[in-house]
Protein backbone atom coordinates (compact mmCIF):
# COMPACT_ATOMS: atom_id res chain seq x y z
CA UNK A 1 0.00 0.00 0.00
CA UNK A 2 1.36 3.42 -0.81
CA UNK A 3 0.06 6.80 0.06
CA UNK A 4 1.23 10.42 0.03
CA UNK A 5 0.05 10.85 3.61
CA UNK A 6 2.80 11.54 6.11
CA UNK A 7 1.35 9.61 9.00
CA UNK A 8 3.75 7.20 10.71
CA UNK A 9 1.10 4.47 10.39
CA UNK A 10 1.44 4.43 6.63
CA UNK A 11 3.40 1.57 5.13
CA UNK A 12 5.21 1.75 1.84
CA UNK A 13 6.14 -1.12 -0.42
CA UNK A 14 9.78 -1.27 -1.45
CA UNK A 15 10.98 -3.27 -4.42
CA UNK A 16 14.51 -4.71 -4.41
CA UNK A 17 16.77 -5.76 -7.29
CA UNK A 18 15.40 -9.33 -7.07
CA UNK A 19 11.91 -7.99 -7.70
CA UNK A 20 10.82 -8.83 -4.15
CA UNK A 21 8.73 -6.35 -2.22
CA UNK A 22 8.52 -5.64 1.49
CA UNK A 23 6.90 -3.11 3.82
CA UNK A 24 8.63 -0.14 5.41
CA UNK A 25 6.94 2.36 7.70
CA UNK A 26 6.55 5.93 6.53
CA UNK A 27 8.40 7.21 9.61
CA UNK A 28 11.44 5.07 8.80
CA UNK A 29 11.36 5.95 5.15
CA UNK A 30 11.21 9.65 5.90
CA UNK A 31 14.79 9.48 7.19
CA UNK A 32 15.80 9.11 3.58
CA UNK A 33 16.17 12.52 1.95
CA UNK A 34 15.98 10.86 -1.45
CA UNK A 35 12.57 9.41 -0.57
CA UNK A 36 11.43 12.75 0.82
CA UNK A 37 12.42 14.50 -2.38
CA UNK A 38 10.91 11.90 -4.71
CA UNK A 39 7.80 10.37 -3.21
CA UNK A 40 6.70 11.95 0.03
CA UNK A 41 4.77 14.81 -1.51
CA UNK A 42 3.61 13.24 -4.72
CA UNK A 43 3.00 9.74 -3.45
CA UNK A 44 3.79 6.54 -5.29
CA UNK A 45 1.49 4.18 -7.12
CA UNK A 46 2.66 0.66 -6.49
CA UNK A 47 5.95 -0.41 -4.93
CA UNK A 48 8.83 2.07 -4.81
CA UNK A 49 11.64 0.64 -6.92
CA UNK A 50 15.07 0.72 -5.30
CA UNK A 51 16.21 -1.91 -7.77
CA UNK A 52 19.93 -1.11 -7.60
CA UNK A 53 20.10 -2.77 -4.19
CA UNK A 54 19.28 -6.28 -3.06
CA UNK A 55 16.64 -7.15 -0.52
CA UNK A 56 19.07 -8.00 2.29
CA UNK A 57 20.83 -4.65 1.97
CA UNK A 58 17.62 -2.63 1.84
CA UNK A 59 16.18 -4.53 4.80
CA UNK A 60 19.35 -3.82 6.77
CA UNK A 61 19.22 -0.13 5.93
CA UNK A 62 15.55 0.18 6.85
CA UNK A 63 16.13 -1.85 10.00
CA UNK A 64 18.44 0.95 11.07
CA UNK A 65 15.88 3.57 10.06
CA UNK A 66 13.11 1.82 12.00
CA UNK A 67 15.34 1.68 15.06
CA UNK A 68 16.30 5.36 14.93
CA UNK A 69 12.77 6.64 14.31
CA UNK A 70 12.43 7.90 17.86
CA UNK A 71 15.94 9.30 18.14
CA UNK A 72 16.51 13.03 18.07
CA UNK A 73 17.10 14.75 14.77
CA UNK A 74 20.54 14.15 13.39
CA UNK A 75 22.94 16.87 14.48
CA UNK A 76 26.33 15.99 13.04
CA UNK A 77 28.53 12.93 13.31
CA UNK A 78 28.64 11.02 16.57
CA UNK A 79 31.85 9.43 17.81
CA UNK A 80 31.87 5.63 17.57
CA UNK A 81 32.56 5.45 21.29
CA UNK A 82 29.22 7.15 21.90
CA UNK A 83 27.26 4.58 19.91
CA UNK A 84 24.68 2.50 21.74
CA UNK A 85 24.95 -1.27 22.15
CA UNK A 86 22.29 -1.76 19.52
CA UNK A 87 24.24 0.39 17.04
CA UNK A 88 27.45 -1.50 17.70
CA UNK A 89 25.72 -4.86 17.24
CA UNK A 90 24.14 -3.59 14.07
CA UNK A 91 27.55 -2.78 12.58
CA UNK A 92 29.37 -5.81 13.96
CA UNK A 93 26.83 -8.24 12.51
CA UNK A 94 27.62 -7.20 8.96
CA UNK A 95 30.35 -8.75 6.85
CA UNK A 96 32.46 -6.48 4.67
CA UNK A 97 30.40 -6.97 1.50
CA UNK A 98 27.16 -6.19 3.27
CA UNK A 99 28.80 -3.19 4.96
CA UNK A 100 29.86 -1.76 1.59
CA UNK A 101 26.41 -2.37 0.12
CA UNK A 102 24.81 -0.67 3.11
CA UNK A 103 27.07 2.39 2.68
CA UNK A 104 26.20 2.64 -0.99
CA UNK A 105 22.48 2.20 -0.39
CA UNK A 106 22.52 4.62 2.51
CA UNK A 107 24.37 7.15 0.38
CA UNK A 108 21.84 6.74 -2.44
CA UNK A 109 18.91 7.04 -0.07
CA UNK A 110 20.71 9.98 1.59
CA UNK A 111 20.27 8.77 5.16
CA UNK A 112 22.69 11.15 6.83
CA UNK A 113 23.02 9.45 10.19
CA UNK A 114 23.72 5.97 8.86
CA UNK A 115 26.08 7.19 6.14
CA UNK A 116 28.04 9.22 8.63
CA UNK A 117 28.39 6.33 11.11
CA UNK A 118 29.52 4.01 8.35
CA UNK A 119 32.05 6.55 7.11
CA UNK A 120 33.39 7.12 10.59
CA UNK A 121 33.82 3.38 10.91
CA UNK A 122 35.94 3.29 7.78
CA UNK A 123 37.93 6.30 8.98
CA UNK A 124 38.70 4.34 12.15
CA UNK A 125 40.10 1.53 10.04
CA UNK A 126 42.60 4.02 8.60
CA UNK A 127 43.53 5.58 11.93
CA UNK A 128 47.01 4.83 13.30
CA UNK A 129 48.07 3.11 10.07
CA UNK A 130 51.09 3.86 7.94
CA UNK A 131 50.71 4.37 4.21
CA UNK A 132 51.32 0.70 3.31
CA UNK A 133 48.67 -0.41 5.79
CA UNK A 134 46.29 2.25 4.52
CA UNK A 135 46.78 0.99 0.98
CA UNK A 136 45.84 -2.50 2.18
CA UNK A 137 42.71 -1.24 3.94
CA UNK A 138 41.42 0.73 1.00
CA UNK A 139 42.65 -1.93 -1.48
CA UNK A 140 44.22 0.34 -4.01
CA UNK A 141 44.77 -1.40 -7.33
CA UNK A 142 48.29 -2.76 -7.83
CA UNK A 143 50.48 -1.77 -10.77
CA UNK A 144 49.56 -5.01 -12.62
CA UNK A 145 45.86 -4.40 -12.07
CA UNK A 146 46.20 -0.85 -13.32
CA UNK A 147 48.06 -2.10 -16.42
CA UNK A 148 45.41 -4.73 -17.14
CA UNK A 149 42.67 -2.14 -16.63
CA UNK A 150 44.41 0.24 -19.01
CA UNK A 151 44.70 -2.53 -21.67
CA UNK A 152 41.00 -3.35 -21.37
CA UNK A 153 40.15 0.34 -21.67
CA UNK A 154 42.38 0.70 -24.73
CA UNK A 155 40.71 -2.32 -26.35
CA UNK A 156 37.28 -0.92 -25.55
CA UNK A 157 38.25 2.47 -26.97
CA UNK A 158 39.58 0.84 -30.16
CA UNK A 159 36.40 -1.22 -30.55
CA UNK A 160 34.24 1.84 -29.93
CA UNK A 161 36.26 3.75 -32.50
CA UNK A 162 35.70 0.99 -35.09
CA UNK A 163 31.98 0.92 -34.38
CA UNK A 164 31.81 4.71 -34.65
CA UNK A 165 33.67 4.66 -37.95
CA UNK A 166 31.36 1.99 -39.35
CA UNK A 167 28.33 3.92 -38.16
CA UNK A 168 29.66 7.08 -39.79
CA UNK A 169 30.22 5.24 -43.08
CA UNK A 170 26.73 3.77 -43.03
CA UNK A 171 25.27 7.14 -42.17
CA UNK A 172 27.15 8.73 -45.06
CA UNK A 173 25.79 6.15 -47.51
CA UNK A 174 22.29 6.49 -46.16
CA UNK A 175 22.59 10.23 -46.34
CA UNK A 176 23.62 10.14 -50.02
CA UNK A 177 20.91 7.70 -50.94
CA UNK A 178 17.98 8.71 -48.78
CA UNK A 179 18.39 12.12 -47.32
CA UNK A 180 19.55 14.03 -50.39
CA UNK A 181 16.74 15.60 -52.35
CA UNK A 182 15.97 13.77 -55.58
CA UNK A 183 16.97 16.67 -57.79
CA UNK A 184 20.33 16.99 -56.04
CA UNK A 185 20.89 13.23 -56.38
CA UNK A 186 20.14 13.39 -60.09
CA UNK A 187 22.53 16.33 -60.47
CA UNK A 188 25.33 14.51 -58.60
CA UNK A 189 24.94 11.39 -60.71
CA UNK A 190 24.88 13.46 -63.88
CA UNK A 191 28.07 15.24 -62.88
CA UNK A 192 29.79 11.92 -62.18
CA UNK A 193 28.77 10.54 -65.55
CA UNK A 194 29.93 13.71 -67.33
CA UNK A 195 33.32 13.47 -65.63
CA UNK A 196 33.63 9.81 -66.64
CA UNK A 197 32.64 10.59 -70.21
CA UNK A 198 35.14 13.43 -70.43
CA UNK A 199 37.98 11.33 -69.09
CA UNK A 200 37.04 8.53 -71.51
CA UNK A 201 36.95 10.91 -74.49
CA UNK A 202 40.33 12.41 -73.48
CA UNK A 203 41.93 8.98 -73.52
Amino acid at each position, binding site marked *: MTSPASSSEVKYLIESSEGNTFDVSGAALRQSNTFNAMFLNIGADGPIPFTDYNEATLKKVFEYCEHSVNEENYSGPKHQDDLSKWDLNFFNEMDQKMFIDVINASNFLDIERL*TSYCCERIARMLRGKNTQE*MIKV*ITLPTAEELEAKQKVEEKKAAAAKKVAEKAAETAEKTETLEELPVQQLVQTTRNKLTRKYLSFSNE
Partner: protein
Amino acid sequence: MRFLNFPFLVYENILKHLEPRELLLFSFCSLKTRTLVSRMRHTPTYTIFILDKPEKMSYGFVEKPEKEQILLSWTWKKIAMESENLDNRTRLKLKDVLLDCRVTFHRKLNIPTLVCRCEDVSSRKRFATALHSHMCEVFHVKPEMQFKLSLDYMDELPYTNTVRDVTFLQSSVNSTVADEFFEKFHVTRALFSKRCVPDRLLKHSCKFLEIKNLFVDWSPWLDITLLLKVKCENIMFSSSTSVANDAHLIMDNFNLEAWDPEVDKIEYDEPVHDYCEELLYFLYDIKKYMLRSGILRRQSDGSRALDKTGSYCSS
Protein backbone atom coordinates in the same frame (compact mmCIF):
# COMPACT_ATOMS: atom_id res chain seq x y z
CA MET B 1 37.50 -2.75 0.58
CA ARG B 2 37.60 -1.00 -2.77
CA PHE B 3 37.66 2.48 -1.35
CA LEU B 4 37.92 4.22 -4.69
CA ASN B 5 34.78 2.50 -5.96
CA PHE B 6 32.68 4.42 -3.45
CA PRO B 7 30.70 7.39 -4.71
CA PHE B 8 32.42 10.76 -4.27
CA LEU B 9 30.14 11.81 -1.41
CA VAL B 10 31.03 8.71 0.57
CA TYR B 11 34.78 9.06 0.48
CA GLU B 12 34.43 12.79 1.04
CA ASN B 13 32.51 11.92 4.18
CA ILE B 14 35.14 9.36 5.25
CA LEU B 15 37.97 11.87 4.83
CA LYS B 16 36.10 14.41 6.95
CA HIS B 17 36.53 12.06 9.90
CA LEU B 18 40.32 11.92 9.57
CA GLU B 19 42.79 14.13 11.42
CA PRO B 20 45.16 16.30 9.34
CA ARG B 21 48.13 14.02 10.05
CA GLU B 22 46.09 10.99 8.95
CA LEU B 23 45.06 12.85 5.83
CA LEU B 24 48.69 13.62 5.11
CA LEU B 25 49.65 9.93 5.26
CA PHE B 26 46.59 9.10 3.19
CA SER B 27 47.63 11.62 0.54
CA PHE B 28 50.95 9.76 0.22
CA CYS B 29 49.19 6.51 -0.79
CA SER B 30 48.62 7.23 -4.47
CA LEU B 31 47.96 10.00 -6.96
CA LYS B 32 44.25 9.34 -6.64
CA THR B 33 44.24 9.66 -2.83
CA ARG B 34 46.33 12.80 -3.15
CA THR B 35 43.70 14.28 -5.49
CA LEU B 36 40.91 13.30 -3.10
CA VAL B 37 42.56 15.11 -0.20
CA SER B 38 43.32 18.16 -2.30
CA ARG B 39 39.65 18.43 -3.31
CA MET B 40 38.61 18.81 0.33
CA ARG B 41 37.97 22.24 1.76
CA HIS B 42 41.09 23.31 3.67
CA THR B 43 41.55 26.53 5.58
CA PRO B 44 44.73 28.15 4.28
CA THR B 45 47.21 28.21 7.11
CA TYR B 46 50.90 28.69 7.73
CA THR B 47 53.26 25.81 8.34
CA ILE B 48 56.42 25.47 10.34
CA PHE B 49 59.61 23.42 10.16
CA ILE B 50 61.02 22.55 13.56
CA LEU B 51 64.66 21.53 13.99
CA ASP B 52 65.49 21.13 17.62
CA LYS B 53 67.42 17.86 17.62
CA PRO B 54 70.17 16.56 15.38
CA GLU B 55 68.88 14.73 12.30
CA LYS B 56 65.29 15.12 13.34
CA MET B 57 62.86 17.49 11.72
CA SER B 58 59.17 18.11 12.30
CA TYR B 59 56.59 19.83 10.21
CA GLY B 60 53.26 21.19 11.34
CA PHE B 61 50.47 23.70 11.04
CA VAL B 62 50.79 27.00 12.86
CA GLU B 63 47.57 27.45 14.77
CA LYS B 64 48.64 30.63 16.51
CA PRO B 65 51.99 32.36 16.67
CA GLU B 66 54.21 30.16 18.79
CA LYS B 67 51.71 27.30 18.82
CA GLU B 68 51.97 24.49 16.36
CA GLN B 69 50.25 21.21 15.57
CA ILE B 70 52.83 18.69 14.42
CA LEU B 71 51.77 16.68 11.40
CA LEU B 72 54.87 14.69 10.61
CA SER B 73 58.37 14.11 11.91
CA TRP B 74 61.25 12.47 10.16
CA THR B 75 64.67 11.33 11.13
CA TRP B 76 67.69 10.14 9.19
CA LYS B 77 69.48 7.04 10.42
CA LYS B 78 72.24 4.86 9.13
CA ILE B 79 70.14 1.77 8.50
CA ALA B 80 70.14 -0.81 5.76
CA MET B 81 66.61 -0.75 4.43
CA GLU B 82 67.22 -3.80 2.25
CA SER B 83 67.73 -6.04 5.24
CA GLU B 84 64.49 -4.98 6.86
CA ASN B 85 61.18 -6.64 6.40
CA LEU B 86 59.74 -5.23 3.21
CA ASP B 87 56.27 -5.08 4.72
CA ASN B 88 57.46 -2.49 7.19
CA ARG B 89 58.88 -0.31 4.49
CA THR B 90 57.00 2.52 2.87
CA ARG B 91 57.99 4.19 -0.35
CA LEU B 92 57.04 7.84 -0.48
CA LYS B 93 56.98 9.65 -3.75
CA LEU B 94 56.86 13.42 -3.53
CA LYS B 95 57.36 15.07 -6.89
CA ASP B 96 60.86 13.97 -7.96
CA VAL B 97 61.86 12.70 -4.51
CA LEU B 98 61.59 9.00 -3.82
CA LEU B 99 62.08 8.04 -0.21
CA ASP B 100 62.22 4.61 1.39
CA CYS B 101 61.31 4.79 5.03
CA ARG B 102 59.60 3.13 7.94
CA VAL B 103 56.63 4.83 9.61
CA THR B 104 56.34 4.72 13.37
CA PHE B 105 53.97 6.56 15.67
CA HIS B 106 54.80 8.66 18.68
CA ARG B 107 53.28 6.78 21.62
CA LYS B 108 51.31 9.53 23.33
CA LEU B 109 50.77 12.13 20.66
CA ASN B 110 50.30 9.67 17.80
CA ILE B 111 52.54 11.74 15.54
CA PRO B 112 53.75 9.74 12.54
CA THR B 113 57.52 9.63 12.28
CA LEU B 114 59.40 8.59 9.18
CA VAL B 115 62.61 6.72 9.86
CA CYS B 116 64.62 7.29 6.71
CA ARG B 117 67.92 5.96 5.54
CA CYS B 118 70.63 8.58 5.93
CA GLU B 119 70.96 10.66 2.77
CA ASP B 120 73.28 13.52 1.87
CA VAL B 121 72.39 17.08 2.88
CA SER B 122 71.02 18.10 -0.50
CA SER B 123 68.65 15.08 -0.59
CA ARG B 124 67.43 15.88 2.90
CA LYS B 125 66.81 19.49 1.89
CA ARG B 126 65.06 18.34 -1.27
CA PHE B 127 62.74 16.11 0.78
CA ALA B 128 61.81 18.98 3.11
CA THR B 129 61.19 21.26 0.13
CA ALA B 130 59.12 18.62 -1.68
CA LEU B 131 57.05 18.00 1.45
CA HIS B 132 56.19 21.69 1.74
CA SER B 133 55.36 21.82 -1.95
CA HIS B 134 53.09 18.76 -1.47
CA MET B 135 51.36 20.55 1.42
CA CYS B 136 50.85 23.67 -0.70
CA GLU B 137 49.22 21.64 -3.46
CA VAL B 138 47.21 19.21 -1.36
CA PHE B 139 46.36 21.14 1.81
CA HIS B 140 46.55 24.59 0.22
CA VAL B 141 48.83 25.87 2.97
CA LYS B 142 50.41 29.28 2.54
CA PRO B 143 53.67 29.02 0.59
CA GLU B 144 55.64 31.21 2.98
CA MET B 145 57.43 29.00 5.53
CA GLN B 146 58.16 29.46 9.22
CA PHE B 147 61.15 28.01 11.05
CA LYS B 148 61.82 27.09 14.63
CA LEU B 149 65.35 25.91 14.97
CA SER B 150 68.64 25.63 16.64
CA LEU B 151 71.04 27.35 14.26
CA ASP B 152 73.36 24.34 14.64
CA TYR B 153 71.20 22.58 12.05
CA MET B 154 70.74 25.46 9.63
CA ASP B 155 72.01 23.40 6.68
CA GLU B 156 69.01 21.08 6.94
CA LEU B 157 66.48 23.78 6.12
CA PRO B 158 64.47 23.51 2.90
CA TYR B 159 65.19 25.68 -0.10
CA THR B 160 63.50 29.06 0.18
CA ASN B 161 64.40 32.74 0.19
CA THR B 162 61.81 34.16 2.51
CA VAL B 163 60.64 33.10 5.94
CA ARG B 164 57.65 34.58 7.70
CA ASP B 165 58.57 33.96 11.34
CA VAL B 166 61.65 32.40 12.81
CA THR B 167 62.20 31.18 16.35
CA PHE B 168 65.71 30.60 17.62
CA LEU B 169 66.30 27.81 20.09
CA GLN B 170 69.44 26.93 22.02
CA SER B 171 72.52 26.60 19.86
CA SER B 172 76.28 26.55 20.06
CA VAL B 173 76.95 29.00 17.24
CA ASN B 174 77.67 32.72 17.34
CA SER B 175 76.42 35.92 15.73
CA THR B 176 78.27 35.25 12.46
CA VAL B 177 76.06 32.22 11.82
CA ALA B 178 72.99 34.22 12.83
CA ASP B 179 73.90 36.90 10.28
CA GLU B 180 74.50 34.16 7.70
CA PHE B 181 70.99 32.94 8.40
CA PHE B 182 69.50 36.42 7.95
CA GLU B 183 71.42 36.85 4.71
CA LYS B 184 70.20 33.54 3.35
CA PHE B 185 66.59 33.91 4.48
CA HIS B 186 64.71 37.17 4.45
CA VAL B 187 62.53 37.18 7.59
CA THR B 188 59.38 39.01 6.58
CA ARG B 189 57.54 39.18 9.88
CA ALA B 190 59.05 38.30 13.22
CA LEU B 191 61.96 36.90 15.14
CA PHE B 192 61.43 35.11 18.43
CA SER B 193 64.41 34.38 20.59
CA LYS B 194 63.81 31.92 23.39
CA ARG B 195 65.16 32.30 26.89
CA CYS B 196 67.57 29.42 26.29
CA VAL B 197 69.32 31.22 23.42
CA PRO B 198 72.85 32.17 24.49
CA ASP B 199 73.84 35.87 24.53
CA ARG B 200 76.49 35.40 21.87
CA LEU B 201 73.94 34.51 19.16
CA LEU B 202 72.39 37.93 18.70
CA LYS B 203 74.57 40.24 20.74
CA HIS B 204 76.98 40.99 17.89
CA SER B 205 74.56 40.38 15.08
CA CYS B 206 73.84 43.44 13.00
CA LYS B 207 71.21 41.89 10.74
CA PHE B 208 68.62 41.10 13.38
CA LEU B 209 68.14 44.79 14.07
CA GLU B 210 66.40 45.13 10.71
CA ILE B 211 63.60 42.66 11.43
CA LYS B 212 60.17 44.24 11.76
CA ASN B 213 59.03 42.47 14.92
CA LEU B 214 61.36 41.34 17.65
CA PHE B 215 60.41 39.16 20.61
CA VAL B 216 63.34 38.43 22.81
CA ASP B 217 62.47 36.38 25.84
CA TRP B 218 65.39 37.22 28.10
CA SER B 219 68.02 39.65 26.96
CA PRO B 220 70.48 40.96 29.52
CA TRP B 221 72.80 41.52 26.55
CA LEU B 222 70.36 43.92 24.91
CA ASP B 223 71.91 47.13 26.19
CA ILE B 224 70.76 50.63 25.51
CA THR B 225 73.20 51.28 22.65
CA LEU B 226 71.94 48.22 20.80
CA LEU B 227 68.37 49.02 21.58
CA LEU B 228 68.66 52.49 20.12
CA LYS B 229 69.74 50.93 16.82
CA VAL B 230 66.72 48.67 16.25
CA LYS B 231 64.51 49.60 13.32
CA CYS B 232 61.55 47.39 14.20
CA GLU B 233 57.86 48.21 14.37
CA ASN B 234 57.26 46.06 17.45
CA ILE B 235 59.65 44.94 20.09
CA MET B 236 59.16 42.98 23.23
CA PHE B 237 61.99 42.07 25.52
CA SER B 238 62.84 41.40 29.10
CA SER B 239 66.02 43.13 29.99
CA SER B 240 68.36 44.12 32.73
CA THR B 241 67.79 47.08 35.02
CA SER B 242 70.39 49.13 33.17
CA VAL B 243 67.87 49.52 30.33
CA ALA B 244 65.12 50.43 32.74
CA ASN B 245 67.31 53.19 34.07
CA ASP B 246 67.60 54.57 30.58
CA ALA B 247 63.88 54.41 29.96
CA HIS B 248 63.74 58.03 28.89
CA LEU B 249 66.22 57.28 26.09
CA ILE B 250 64.03 54.48 24.80
CA MET B 251 61.00 56.70 25.04
CA ASP B 252 62.80 59.36 23.04
CA ASN B 253 64.02 56.85 20.48
CA PHE B 254 60.56 55.44 19.86
CA ASN B 255 59.00 58.85 20.37
CA LEU B 256 56.84 57.55 23.20
CA GLU B 257 54.85 59.58 25.64
CA ALA B 258 53.77 58.64 29.11
CA TRP B 259 50.61 56.64 29.43
CA ASP B 260 47.63 58.27 31.04
CA PRO B 261 45.64 55.62 32.92
CA GLU B 262 42.66 57.97 33.12
CA VAL B 263 42.32 58.06 29.36
CA ASP B 264 43.96 54.91 28.02
CA LYS B 265 42.73 51.45 28.80
CA ILE B 266 44.89 48.41 28.27
CA GLU B 267 43.35 46.51 25.40
CA TYR B 268 45.68 43.97 23.97
CA ASP B 269 44.15 43.58 20.58
CA GLU B 270 47.27 45.02 18.96
CA PRO B 271 49.37 42.71 16.80
CA VAL B 272 51.82 42.34 19.62
CA HIS B 273 49.29 40.25 21.48
CA ASP B 274 49.21 37.69 18.69
CA TYR B 275 52.90 37.21 18.95
CA CYS B 276 53.58 36.89 22.59
CA GLU B 277 50.51 36.05 24.58
CA GLU B 278 52.51 33.99 27.03
CA LEU B 279 55.01 36.72 27.63
CA LEU B 280 52.22 39.18 28.30
CA TYR B 281 50.61 36.83 30.80
CA PHE B 282 53.95 36.63 32.52
CA LEU B 283 54.03 40.42 32.70
CA TYR B 284 50.50 40.53 34.09
CA ASP B 285 51.57 38.17 36.84
CA ILE B 286 54.48 40.25 37.96
CA LYS B 287 52.56 43.50 37.63
CA LYS B 288 51.42 43.57 41.20
CA TYR B 289 54.97 43.27 42.47
CA MET B 290 56.21 46.13 40.38
CA LEU B 291 56.24 49.67 41.58
CA ARG B 292 56.54 51.25 38.20
CA SER B 293 54.44 50.15 35.28
CA GLY B 294 52.34 51.64 32.53
CA ILE B 295 51.70 52.09 28.88
CA LEU B 296 53.67 54.49 26.79
CA ARG B 297 52.00 55.87 23.72
CA ARG B 298 53.54 57.29 20.58
CA GLN B 299 51.41 60.21 19.50
CA SER B 300 52.32 60.08 15.82
CA ASP B 301 50.76 56.69 15.06
CA GLY B 302 49.23 55.50 18.32
CA SER B 303 51.92 52.87 18.92
CA ARG B 304 52.14 51.84 22.50
CA ALA B 305 54.67 50.33 24.83
CA LEU B 306 54.10 48.45 28.03
CA ASP B 307 56.70 49.39 30.56
CA LYS B 308 57.54 47.31 33.59
CA THR B 309 60.69 48.09 35.45
CA GLY B 310 63.12 46.25 33.29
CA SER B 311 60.61 44.94 30.71
CA TYR B 312 59.36 46.53 27.56
CA CYS B 313 56.75 45.63 25.07
CA SER B 314 56.25 48.06 22.25
CA SER B 315 53.52 47.82 19.67
